[in-house]
């Protein structure tokens, strides 16, 4: 098949398969069935899922094209601009489709009398600015329009990275709309959906981009780019499978509920997922290895088949989105104090056993922790294979850090962090002062530099992106001891004693931000303490943090009033310590945490000395793999 034909057939097959699956799915699940009350008519009932499908496909292509450009292509080459053109065109379609979806949703939800009159215009305006649903589509449409222009205008590395981040962020509002999941796990359902959508976007969008890129790639390039895409696809497959399973768990309460149209659509998606996974294995294992030139017709037919399969999954997904899930509630009834504050019922008493059995999985950080361990171990294995030493202690420290990250974000500290000030403090101290030192001592940056193959074709892989990040002016400022210290003190107090904490409690986005921010600040500080050559600076930094943490602890311990009385004091909790006693416990935890910086500066430095973890060599040009296997010998540690 020649490339022009492929360019036409690929997307066509994708769209056709998607549309067919959507129609079958809607007929089966009743997602477009006439409604008894205020039926918006068949145009809206059938049109809404179709434009929503178009939104999904175009948004995926937009993100996928940008990610492929960033990860597999060379800037300032035709392939790069072509990928950005694909992204721009997809974003344009996304803009129109998102606008149409917003309008169709408005008509479907509020059933207004459609006219060109004033009254209708005002109603539409109110919907777009005042209702949550309207705002979601307004934001999506505007964001898509911005990305259309950005992707058209930018051609550099940094600017493309920013565009890609905006593009991924543009997927988030769509995932947060609606009341998915039962009352107790709404946030979990939303997080699973966000990860799912991003995974699908990279996977599906990347494949579509591949089809468009083919004519711009020379014979030698095709194999390289396909190989890199298949690495992305493998990671996406894992994300999509895990988040899909998690989303399913939140949408059903009883396995028997799977024997429903909803369950059947879900089965279609699952089958498509596994067929796609198998196809991926086939071409990763066999076809790429045997690939010569631009790949035979068989190879590109396989890609088309894959697109068809993705179409089926996308169509089923769009139909599924219109089919009410068994456990989804329309508007959760919030009655108790805890439900009004946290949108989840009060958990049972925090018994010693509950420290082990209370889980509220935050999929984002679970994925980060799992990915962190898997990639780290893979890197160590790669080093071992070529006979290079990697101290076991680093692996152990890194793994402990990641496990602790998982427990802190998903275990008892997370499950009770919204309800008990002490558990919230425990989580914050872990994220700021316990986990980052463990991770920094694992020397991940050094491992990445040593284990990841050096790209020499002018594209950016993980290794090149990491190096670019360490050379960036922003990080150069953040690495200064004074900046890291001030950030840490501000975070300790900002998240411990100001309204910022209230924001992280109320807003799921604030909650995730606080975790990411704490880890970043903690890592900066740990890196500073571990690498600083001057004892005086080290003592000053350690001293400042210890004083700040102790002060926070004493403030909690000694003040007669109850901080965050309108939150921790208003839960209606009948078990456990009274809020004021609990606040004192939080203070004690902070005081214990104040010892950690001192430990880090003394014991921690014995584990990993400056040259061990620093590894941000100013002159790190990167030796090309694997020729560097012999230079840079490492002392091996027990």
């Amino acid at each position, binding site marked *: 098949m020649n490339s022009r034909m492929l360019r036409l057939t690929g997307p066509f097959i994708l769209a056709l398969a998607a549309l067919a699956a959507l129609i079958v799915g809607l007929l089966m699940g009743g997602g477009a069935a006439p409604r008894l009350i205020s039926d918006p008519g068949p145009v809206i009932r059938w049109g809404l899922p179709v434009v929503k499908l178009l939104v999904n496909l175009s948004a995926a292509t937009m993100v996928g094209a940008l990610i492929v450009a960033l990860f597999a292509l060379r800037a300032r080459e035709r392939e790069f601009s072509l990928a950005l053109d694909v992204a721009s065109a997809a974003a344009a379609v996304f803009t129109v489709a998102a606008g149409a979806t917003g309008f169709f949703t408005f008509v479907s939800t509020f059933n207004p009398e459609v006219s060109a009159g004033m009254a209708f215009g005002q109603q539409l305006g109110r919907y777009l600015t005042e209702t949550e649903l309207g705002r979601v589509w307004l934001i999506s449409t505007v964001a898509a329009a911005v990305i259309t222009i950005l992707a058209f205008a930018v051609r550099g590395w940094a600017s493309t990275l920013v565009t890609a981040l905006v593009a991924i962020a543009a997927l988030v509002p769509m995932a947060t709309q609606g009341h998915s999941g039962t009352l107790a796990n709404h946030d979990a359902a939303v997080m699973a959906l966000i990860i799912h959508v991003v995974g699908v976007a990279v996977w599906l969008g990347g494949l579509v981009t591949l089809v468009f890129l083919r004519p711009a790639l020379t014979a030698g390039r095709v194999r390289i780019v396909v190989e890199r895409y298949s690495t992305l696809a493998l990671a996406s497959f894992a994300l999509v499978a895990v988040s899909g399973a998690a989303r399913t768990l939140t949408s059903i309460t009883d396995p028997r509920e799977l024997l429903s149209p909803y369950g059947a659509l879900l089965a279609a998606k699952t089958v498509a997922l596994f067929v796609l996974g198998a196809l991926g294995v086939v071409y990763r294992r066999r076809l790429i290895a045997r690939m010569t030139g631009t790949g035979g017709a068989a190879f590109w037919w396989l890609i088309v088949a894959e697109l068809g399969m993705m179409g089926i999954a996308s169509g089923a997904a769009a139909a599924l989105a219109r089919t009410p899930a068994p456990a989804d509630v329309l508007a959760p009834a919030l009655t*108790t*104090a805890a439900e*009004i*504050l946290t949108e989840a019922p009060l958990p049972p008493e925090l018994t010693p056993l509950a420290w082990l059995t209370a889980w509220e999985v935050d999929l984002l950080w679970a994925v980060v922790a799992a990915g962190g361990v898997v990639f780290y171990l893979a890197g160590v294995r790669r080093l071992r294979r070529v006979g290079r030493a990697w101290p076991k202690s680093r692996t152990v420290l890194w793994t402990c850090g990641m496990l602790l990250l998982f427990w802190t974000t998903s275990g008892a500290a997370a499950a009770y962090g919204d309800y008990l000030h002490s558990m919230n403090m425990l989580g914050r101290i872990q994220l700021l002062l316990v986990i980052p030192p463990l991770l920094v001592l694992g020397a991940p940056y050094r491992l990445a530099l040593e284990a990841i193959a050096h790209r020499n074709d002018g594209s950016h892989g993980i290794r090149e992106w990491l190096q670019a990040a360490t050379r960036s002016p922003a990080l150069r400022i953040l690495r*200064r*001891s*004074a900046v890291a*210290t*001030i950030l840490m*003190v*501000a975070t300790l*107090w*900002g998240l411990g*004693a*100001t*309204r910022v904490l209230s924001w992280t409690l109320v807003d799921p986005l604030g909650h995730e931000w606080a975790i990411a921010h704490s880890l970043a600040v903690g890592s900066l500080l740990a890196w500073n303490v571990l690498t600083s050559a001057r004892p*005086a*600076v080290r*003592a*000053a*930094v350690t*001293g*400042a*943090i210890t*004083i*700040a943490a102790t*002060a926070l602890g004493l*403030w909690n311990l000694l*003040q007669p*009033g*109850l*901080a965050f*009385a*309108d939150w921790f*004091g*208003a*839960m*209606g*909790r*009948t078990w456990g310590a*009274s*809020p*004021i006693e609990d606040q004192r416990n939080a203070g004690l935890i902070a005081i214990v945490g104040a010892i950690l910086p001192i430990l880090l500066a003394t014991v921690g430095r014995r584990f990993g000395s400056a040259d061990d973890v620093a590894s941000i060599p100013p002159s790190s040009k990167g030796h090309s793999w694997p020729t560097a296997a012999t230079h840079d010998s490492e002392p091996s540690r027990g």
Partner: protein
Amino acid sequence: MKRPRPVLAAALLAGVLALASCAYTVSLDAAADAESPLCANASVRLPETIGDLERRWTDAQATGAWGVPTAVVCSCGLQPPAPTTLQCVTIGGVDWIVDETDTPNLRLTTYGREPAAQAYIDTTVVSADEVLGVLSTAVQQLPATGECTAPDVETGQQDAPTAVDGDGR
């Protein structure tokens, strides 16, 4: 960089933050039974604003404060008052005993609710009727155990102390 800089900057920052968090907190005492879950039900429903008055941050359980300087304070978890000869008003389905000792400030205590709630209002800033009207949604959460025998039912502005509209002082 020189040694004392980070310490100094950090200490300064901590000081500023501590001051800032104190400056907008209203210090109150919690009532005896403030820990009751019934009070939690009421306090999570307290309004963000009463008229133009913004809600403030308090440091006591089951309390609320509005306005700068504080014009309205309310707290939950008091002992229910015994029958009294003081005036009783019914606003929004809640009976309140009116204590005018501190005029122009009014102390209003729920009657026939257990646990009881209390509002303390600077009537030169906001009218008692308006405050009680807005608070009733929250206070209704407290279970009723009795009612006033001859309450003054709200009849517009008649019973209300004169409200002074102005710059919120």
